[in-house]
């Protein structure tokens, strides 16, 4: 296993990754399905839990890290993360501005259909 450990990990890393993932998943669903967390803090919490679980799975399941054999993958991943941030944040920002600035008249779906 030592010759190729980057691709496989160990049973311990898979078990730790699995337990952490289950815990983070249950925390996310629990935050929304129960009343433990104040309503206005829920979105921020589930986003934080999502990011945490992404990191857990990247490290424990996909074995991403700074080990030499994984450096290329990690660098490519970092570039992709940047692109994703630009695409997603940019789209939401631009479309939000378009919604706010370019629709002076409040036109409901019903009214829009009447116009046809």
């Amino acid at each position, binding site marked *: 296993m030592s010759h190729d450990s980057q691709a496989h990990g160990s049973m311990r890393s898979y078990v730790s990754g*699995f337990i952490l993932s289950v815990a983070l998943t249950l925390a996310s669903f629990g935050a929304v399905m129960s009343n433990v967390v104040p309503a206005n803090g829920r979105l921020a919490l589930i986003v934080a839990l999502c990011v945490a679980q992404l990191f857990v799975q990247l490290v424990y399941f996909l074995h991403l890290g700074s080990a030499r054999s994984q450096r290329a993958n990690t660098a490519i991943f970092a570039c992709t993360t940047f692109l994703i941030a630009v695409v997603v944040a940019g789209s939401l920002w631009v479309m939000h501005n378009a919604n706010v600035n370019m629709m002076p008249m409040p036109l409901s779906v019903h009214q829009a259909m009447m116009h046809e």
Partner: protein
Amino acid sequence: MSTTLATAGHGHAEHDDGSMTTVGFWIYLMSDCLIFATLFATFGVLAGATAGGPGGRELFGLPFVLTETMLLLLSSFTFGAGMLGAAAGRRRVLVGWLAITFLLGLGFIAMEVHEFVELIHDGAGPSRSAFLSAYFGLVGTHGLHVLSGLVWLGVMMHQVLRFGLDGIVRRRLACLSLFWHFLDLIWICVFTFVYLREFTP
């Protein structure tokens, strides 16, 4: 046969130990990530555009989604356990874990298809509103990936039994392993931003 195939490409046998293949496959996965990023961005923009139709709160059942999530998460773990079997050269252990992974993935797909059929039956199909178009586009694309993963799993189980754990089969297993774990990553974002977000104020 394995050596002919391995050296046929560029004549750099010393580079073709499988590590370049997995880096190449990783680049493909990252490009797939960008597809999902645009689908998530589209969903984010259209999430409020329900056109007077039903919203997520009325349509989604969180215990159902939690079960789907657990199936996929468990399948990620069983795949990892299978890969340890492969690393130890234990074919039967590997195929056993792959079979369990296949069944868990199949359960996930069955639940998703059931959910889609129910939604369409209730008049909340993809043509109902921009929100639902974006929802079916995003979640459906993930489902199609899982379905391709299932086909690939079936092919790999056959190859392991037929050809044994030679270099080529190992390399393909390593790619499938990345693919399968990657689908779990996408699903984490799906259940957070598509399902759970609908239930936050």
